[in-house]
């Protein structure tokens, strides 16, 4: 039942039963709370004048946001704006005493078109300028005679995020990192580990690299 604008009445006019039905009864039925049908509903305008829609309540833990056409609110579960890559296996870096880029084998999720399939190692491309959190870990094993210092660093600026100086022979150190940095669009994020010593046996066993957009900063 459509809402009808109530006409202006002046002294001496009759207010008839028909007017009462049209402008009072029907207008009440065309608006709230008569139109509510279920708990949690909200109302929003569908055009610029005298027309609205009912927004059904979402499900926990939905958040209210703007729809893709910017024409109405909608309840959604926020999408993670970020990517998670993992590596599991046994890789022996071929060059000692040098940095070794991690080639991730599994993409757990990619919420935001971060994955760059054009490169074996630079597999994360920042989609837009902003502040990002980069976290993850590397899990390596040292050779029996390996007394060196394994390290990990993050591109694009080779930021050192972990080292384990003094690691004991035959150990399995895990380096965990979590940094927040400002990146520019198209920056390539990579993870490299440092093969510390010339004795055989240093291997990469697991690695994990997660990038998540946090927001912009002026």
């Amino acid at each position: 039942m459509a809402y009808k604008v109530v006409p202006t009445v002046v002294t001496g006019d009759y207010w008839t039963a028909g007017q009462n039905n049209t402008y009072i009864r029907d207008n009440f039925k065309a608006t709230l709370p008569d139109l509510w049908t279920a708990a949690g509903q909200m109302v929003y305008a569908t055009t610029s004048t005298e027309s609205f829609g009912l927004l059904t309540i979402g499900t926990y833990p939905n958040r209210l946001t703007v729809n893709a056409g910017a024409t109405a609110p909608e309840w959604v579960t926020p999408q993670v704006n970020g990517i998670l890559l993992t590596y599991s296996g046994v890789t022996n870096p071929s060059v000692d005493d040098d940095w070794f880029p991690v080639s991730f084998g599994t993409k757990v999720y990619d919420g935001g078109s971060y994955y760059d399939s054009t490169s074996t190692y630079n597999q994360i491309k920042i989609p837009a300028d902003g502040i990002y959190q980069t976290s993850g870990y590397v899990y390596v094993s040292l050779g029996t005679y390996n007394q060196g210092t394994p390290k990990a660093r993050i591109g694009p600026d080779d930021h050192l995020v972990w080292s384990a100086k003094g690691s004991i022979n035959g150990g399995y150190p895990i380096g965990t990192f979590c940094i927040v940095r400002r990146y520019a669009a198209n920056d390539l994020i990579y993870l490299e580990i440092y093969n510390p010593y010339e004795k055989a046996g240093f291997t990469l066993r697991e690695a994990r690299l997660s990038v998540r957009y946090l927001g912009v900063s002026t």
Partner: protein
Amino acid sequence: MAYTALPTFITGDLFTAANANSYWRDNFAAGAPGVFAAAGDLHYATGANAGAALTIGDAGQVLSVNSGGTAPEWDGSLIGVGVSSTDTNLVKNEYKTVVFDTEAFDTGSFYSSTNSDAVTIPFAGVFQLSGTVTFDASTDGTAPFLSVRIGGTNMVGFGWGYPGEVSAISFCYTNKFAANYNAYLEVSYGCTGTAYSTDYGIDCADYQIVWLGTT
């Protein structure tokens, strides 16, 4: 003030003061802007033909669906838990589940003091798990190796203790989880030498889980 649907009137009907109070006054009061009491109020349904005002939240809050799925509510954007434990003894070469005794925050029913070694992911999504485990100083002159894992399988931290020194392992682990995943925290120490003194263990541990969203 409850809303009452108007009956149809016909010519000759008497429209009384009581009718006016019920159908005009009360019905206007039951709708918007009648239910509004303060700036920022929102109008939402509490059931069929019934509504109420939702008072504006605090700065920075976002509009969310309540845990019952029945109404909108203003709340903080963080859904997560922060718990900590105190001194716990360990057994050499065995993982021991950390029992948490202090809850700093819990906005998603992750933790229950009646099941204090479990920290349960309440719904499917991507979560960040972080924390720090502080190990006691070893007292027998050797260096133990220290491990931290989550959910029985996910290794998130490994390090070395040094004789007579406290050691700490920090971790930050992001993953996609299914609903009801038990993200319990385990720690262990090991060594190839003789057993440590019986009081070796962790001095404290803190553990946070924060919901990031879905994919």
